[in-house]
């Protein structure tokens, strides 16, 4: 920001305010037009505009500090208005920049991703089904076989995470390897590996659920809500 030279010399002593509320209000108004039409302003005008807002902000803040009672409130209100303008500027600039950069971004390979997610996710589920059938064929009851299958899949997910294979799989499969229960195992095992070096209390203990935590929290929460709905509807 380039400070306004004449003004900044005057400002050296803060005693007498060289700026009035009306002046600031006037400048707030005068900036409105520019802020509405950022797209057509050139870089120089924009930098003037931001410097102007910043300089006013600084001046108003000092008045707010010095003032008492009701006047303080009024300066505060003005400062917030300037901050709103600064925020507006930032938001508008963001939108303009996004318009410019969006066409340049590489396209996500959606069809390939969906296909791989389908195949890998399906394969994991097929493995699960085979395990389930094996348990059933060997005499476990359906409920017990389901729990045993989950346990085996969780074990496999954790094992492949430990062997450094699961993240390679996830790179290609995306949701295909995140959604099945093996993905859940991966989300617990990977922080466990990662934070082992910070010790078992502050590392593994504290960080184990960094990724899975939100799933557990909101999974539990939703199950309670659904349970309540079921209870009342029934």
């Amino acid at each position, binding site marked *: 920001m380039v400070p306004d030279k004449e003004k900044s010399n005057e400002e050296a002593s803060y005693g007498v305010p060289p700026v009035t509320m009306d002046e600031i209000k006037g400048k707030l108004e005068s900036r409105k037009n520019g802020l509405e039409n950022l797209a057509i302003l050139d870089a120089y005008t924009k930098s003037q505009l931001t410097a102007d807002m910043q300089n006013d902000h600084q001046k108003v803040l000092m008045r707010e500090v010095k003032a008492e009672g009701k006047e303080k409130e009024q300066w505060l209100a003005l400062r917030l208005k300037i901050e709103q303008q600064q925020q507006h500027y*930032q*938001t508008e*600039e*963001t*939108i303009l*920049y*996004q318009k*410019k*950069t969006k066409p*340049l*971004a*590489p*396209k*996500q*390979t959606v069809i390939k*991703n969906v296909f791989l997610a389908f195949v890998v996710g399906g394969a994991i589920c097929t493995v699960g089904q085979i395990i389930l059938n094996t348990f059933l064929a060997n005499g476990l009851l359906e409920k017990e076989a389901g729990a045993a299958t989950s346990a085996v899949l969780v074990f496999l997910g954790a094992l492949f*995470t*430990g062997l*450094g294979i*699961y*993240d390679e*799989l*996830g*790179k*290609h*499969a*995306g949701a295909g*390897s*995140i959604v099945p229960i093996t*993905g859940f195992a*991966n*989300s617990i*095992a*990977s*922080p466990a*590996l*990662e*934070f082992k*070096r910070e010790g078992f209390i502050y590392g593994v203990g504290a960080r184990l659920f*960094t*990724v899975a935590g939100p799933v557990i929290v909101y999974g539990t929460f939703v199950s309670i809500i659904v349970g309540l709905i079921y209870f009342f509807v029934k």
Partner: protein
Amino acid sequence: MAQNKIGKQTLQLSSSPVLTSWGSVVGPKEGKGPLHDYFDYILKDNLDKGDKSWENTEQKIMQHSMELALEKEGMVSASLDYFLGGDLLNQITCANLTARFLGVPFLGIYGACSTLVEGLCLGSMFLDGGYADNVGVSASSHHDTAERQLRFPTEQGIQRPMTSQWTVTGAGSFILKRSGKGISIPQATLGKIKDLGVANSNDMGTAMAPAAHDTIKNHLQDLGRKTEDYDLIITGDLGMLGLNVLKTLLVEDGYSIDNIYDCGLLIFDPGQDTHSGGSGCGCSAVVLPYLLQQLWEKKYQRIFLVGTGALLSPTTAFQGESIPGIAHGVVLENH
């Protein structure tokens, strides 16, 4: 008026401080990249032998790169007047721990991936101002330490978007001297923060491009130069997307863009599956020795190196803040 300042942001370093020696250590993936012949030491594993943690390894590679740079020049660490260093970790811990071994006055610096160029700018100012004869500058990053701090655990099976970049495992150290044989730094340009609202930590290139654009533009304006006055204008780690954005912005201003490139695209081969290219403090820090070698062999006469940093904080990013970008540049010449 400040005598050594040209225009708004550019420093005229009248005594032209000289980069006389440098050292680099990289991880195995970088060692398999196209620049493998230019690295001094290539680690066999991201966790070096005998190290307890990745952080441990990152600290060691920074220290080792500085030791190699010193040894090449026949210096010991005590002959440095100051050591400037930084990395990506919280509290720039690798630099702090490295400074413990060097035993000279130390300034820790943080400019995300612009750290190296920030250090070169500051070091050159120390030398040009007559405050030092020898300054050491280091920067490092490590893929695994950065990922676990800024994104996800490394074994997490996530799909990285196409815009994401791969943090380079590597450290580079440089010895700056008041005079001597080497590559000189006649000018440097310090950059402003530019933040155009990019909040996606997997799209750092787009976040940094406006800062790089601003610094390059101001540099050229301050010195009355054109892009053609350089054999190469090279950014630190904009990656493929960021570089495209930068070029678009420069074309809008009417600059020619034929000689603009990015370190993040040099360090990895497209086949290495890094998506948008390399990133991190280590990216420009280990590519720079290659560029210096090219200058030394007179393949290039004058390069403008622009270190680009996306000043990402996971805390404020989760709170919805965007990522401020910064870029500093140094002119590198061989005369």
